């Protein structure tokens, strides 16, 4: 007889205020098995995992239907603590780290190694002192298991996103009782190389008998590490197949429910815009962005082009737009269309018709507790006095809720955002859909120059083309100059005219998008 599976989810159902997001989900998982969970944005992947992990939101919104069995025993987790005790670990789509703490402290939060002292003998173990050496050792070990190099003493705020991600994973890895690990889009912020390291450590875990549920929109990764692929669509499991028997196009068609025509991406192979005029010139830019320091960037952006900025994590590519837009302390010279733009003043950039989509949507990207309407319209309203009705000669600027609703509806439609209404809170959207709202917010500004960092972070394969096409369309039809920063080289190559590679806080070279991959690889490693 076959051994009972490690985890069994039976007929899981979930609705949020009558909005059915999961229906009759059945999933089984065996020891050491790696399953890939894929599906469009808003298909219900994160929600399903939150149910398994006993997340508070689920209970607060009325619980779920169906049963979860671990080793054939029914469990019902009241909180994530119960789930952790049962051997479940989860790396969330959005980070759940404590900002002011060091990596080590985050990794071992609540499980710190302790030393007895006289006080704790006398009173309670709450007075134990921390055994820092032991903690450092465990943290170091967990970090090494992942095969990456992160500083265990670095404070979370100072880390680049990729390192935050690894810290989260290390936190889960260092748990001894870990039996099931849930990874919700852990690679979305990683470069291919880092992602590869992560995939290796997933393979290692599986060898040690840990079962892994791996959610990603990069389907190639699923094929390369998973044993089984589970595809979800609109809250149903529509397919379950061994990974060895399927292919990316096949999974995509299951996800979307139809065949997705290959867009037949063509690359720009030559430097075609030599004669275009320089619209933005960046000279001697330095940016003090923690974990993504920019040291000395000189870069000319041509009018009407899409310039890609690539490079390994931590080399400074994300710092460039952050610094120019005044969100991180910066120095140097920025000249736009013949005008000097002062640094460290976001307002001046916005007044010069710049717009920016930041890579961390949770921190600067969104008003999580406000409606989608507010999120989309706010910058345009504040900077350009759009969506306002003026009375008494502009003395009173009254919010025009009608106009706001209209523009929000327009972008929701254009970017196919999955939501119940324009009044829904941003917090309630799935990760990918939140990302689309961030883009809509920037589009509403009608910028002349648009910076986008990681525009397709957490966006599914179908919608990715949609988002990239929206960027291209904006560029073609309205002549918007776009500077796009991304860790996915392939995405840059398909979208951009030229790609600048940043390494060691400097631009190590600029190549036409269609240049051979090795050339990019060389540039990436140049100043490291």
């Amino acid at each position, binding site marked *: 007889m076959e051994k009972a599976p490690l985890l069994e989810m039976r007929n899981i159902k979930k609705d949020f205020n009558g909005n059915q997001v999961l229906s009759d989900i059945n999933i089984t998982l065996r020891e050491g098995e790696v399953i890939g969970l894929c599906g469009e944005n808003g298909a219900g992947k994160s929600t399903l995992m939150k149910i398994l992990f006993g997340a508070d939101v689920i209970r607060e919104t009325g619980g779920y239907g169906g049963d979860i069995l671990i080793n054939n025993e029914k469990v019902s987790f009241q909180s994530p603590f119960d789930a952790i005790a049962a051997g479940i670990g989860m790396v969330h789509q959005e980070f759940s780290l404590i900002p002011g703490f060091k990596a080590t402290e985050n990794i071992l939060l609540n499980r710190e190694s302790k030393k007895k002292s006289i006080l704790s003998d006398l009173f309670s173990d709450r007075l134990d002192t921390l055994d820092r050496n032991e903690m450092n050792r465990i943290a170091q070990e967990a970090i090494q298991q992942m095969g990456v190099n992160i500083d265990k003493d670095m404070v979370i705020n100072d880390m680049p996103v990729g390192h935050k991600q690894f810290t989260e994973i290390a936190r889960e890895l260092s748990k001894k009782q870990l039996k099931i690990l849930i990874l919700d889009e852990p690679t979305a912020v990683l470069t291919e190389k880092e992602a590869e390291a992560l995939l290796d450590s997933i393979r290692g875990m599986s060898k040690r008998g840990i079962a892994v549920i791996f959610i990603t929109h990069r389907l190639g990764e699923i094929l390369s590490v998973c044993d089984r692929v589970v595809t979800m669509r609109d809250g149903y499991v529509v397919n379950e197949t061994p990974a060895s028997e399927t292919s990316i196009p096949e999974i995509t068609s299951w996800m979307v429910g139809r065949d997705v025509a290959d867009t037949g991406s063509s690359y720009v192979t030559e430097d075609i815009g030599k004669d275009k005029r320089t619209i933005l010139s960046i000279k001697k830019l330095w940016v003090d962005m923690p974990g993504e320091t920019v040291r000395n960037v000189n870069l000319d952006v041509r009018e009407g082009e899409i310039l890609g900025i690539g490079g390994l994590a931590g080399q400074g590519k994300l710092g460039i737009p952050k610094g120019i837009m005044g969100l991180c302390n910066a120095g140097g010279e920025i000249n736009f269309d013949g005008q000097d733009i002062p640094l460290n003043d976001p307002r001046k950039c916005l007044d010069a018709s710049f717009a*920016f989509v930041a890579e961390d949507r949770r921190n*600067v990207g969104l008003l*999580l*507790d406000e409606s989608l309407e507010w999120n989309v319209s706010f910058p345009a309203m504040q*900077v350009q006095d759009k969506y*306002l009705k003026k009375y008494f000669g502009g003395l009173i600027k*009254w919010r025009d809720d009608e106009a706001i609703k209209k523009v929000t509806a327009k972008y929701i439609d254009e970017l196919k955002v999955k939501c119940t209404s324009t009044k829904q809170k941003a917090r309630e959207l799935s990760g990918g859909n939140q990302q689309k709202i961030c883009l809509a917010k920037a589009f509403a500004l009608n910028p002349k120059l648009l910076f986008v960092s990681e525009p397709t972070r957490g966006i599914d394969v179908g919608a990715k083309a949609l988002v990239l096409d929206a960027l291209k369309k904006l560029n073609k039809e309205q002549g918007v100059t776009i500077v796009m920063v991304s860790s996915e080289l392939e995405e840059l190559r398909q979208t951009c005219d030229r790609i600048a590679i940043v390494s060691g806080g400097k631009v190590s070279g600029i190549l036409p998008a269609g240049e051979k991959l090795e050339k990019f690889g060389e540039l990436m490693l140049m100043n490291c």
Partner: protein
Amino acid sequence: MNEQKLTLKDLIKSKAQEFGLPRLIITGFLLLLLVLSPIVGADLPTQISNIINRFSWNGILVLAMVPMIHSGCGLNFGLPLGIISGLLGATLSIEFGFEGPVSFIMAALLATPFALVLGSVYGWLLNKIKGGEMMIATYVGFSSVSMMCMMWLLLPYHSPNMVWGMAGKGLRTTISLEGYYTQALASFLQINIGNLTIPTGALLFFALLAFGMWAFLHTKTGTAMTAVGSNPDFARSAGINVDKIRMISVVMSTWLAAIGILVYEQGFGFVQLYMAPFYMALPAVSAILIGGATVNKASIMNVVIGTILFQGIVTMTPTVMNNMIHLDMSEVIRIIVSNGMILYALTRKTEGTR
């Protein structure tokens, strides 16, 4: 058919959830007291007039909480600072010899510059210590009251209606407003039906300010204020000067507190100096929390509901209890109830999701 019923039930359930269980209980308790009062022999119309009157006295002080909550500065425990501005306006107006309703207008006008200046300093301070606003606010409230305790004695006031009779200088702890602006608002269009008195003017004045606040929150700057409270980083990236918006909210709150105390005094009939401002902040904080506001979300509805519930319970409980046990314990009971409410309100989960 069956489905229809279900949705109706769901609707009621979701409405009730929206209103919140604690508020439901408190409302139930208040209704119970209202039903009980005629049974134990208290006059219902008098009781209701009492609640309405107290609402009209306190409403604006509770309203003063709104701007700072919206801008993310939290609950304004520094309310005494605004109250002190109001008191300065009140005493100066009397000192300068204004009388009758005019003295109210003059008090408000004279209080305004103090509120603006003190509010700016307070706002500057709060901008220096982002994250610990409420603690600093409490200290500001505390120290400003202590500071003014000395000043009330030392400032060169001379009006015989205000200074200690014997010494001829130094302000008294309570100053009667008879002949000045007592009932200045309340008597405007006042409605009297038997034992029921409605201070129409004072209610209208509250409505005016509440409408002003509601309208402000619908303007560009008001929208920015809410966004700053919701996510300051987002607001900054949208080109908002976060410190400036916070400053505006603190000044607004301080000014509303100054006007609020004047309205309170016109209803109460006395100006109370020295330690009195100190005891005004907590009831206002509690009222808005009971009204359903959180540390970073508050609406005009929260103000209205909260003030009615808080003042209702605080006035009704002692009366009903006294009539039941025929023993005058009103002060004791009032203290127990009001502090109990404050404690309850503060322990409630007030930290909205951030």
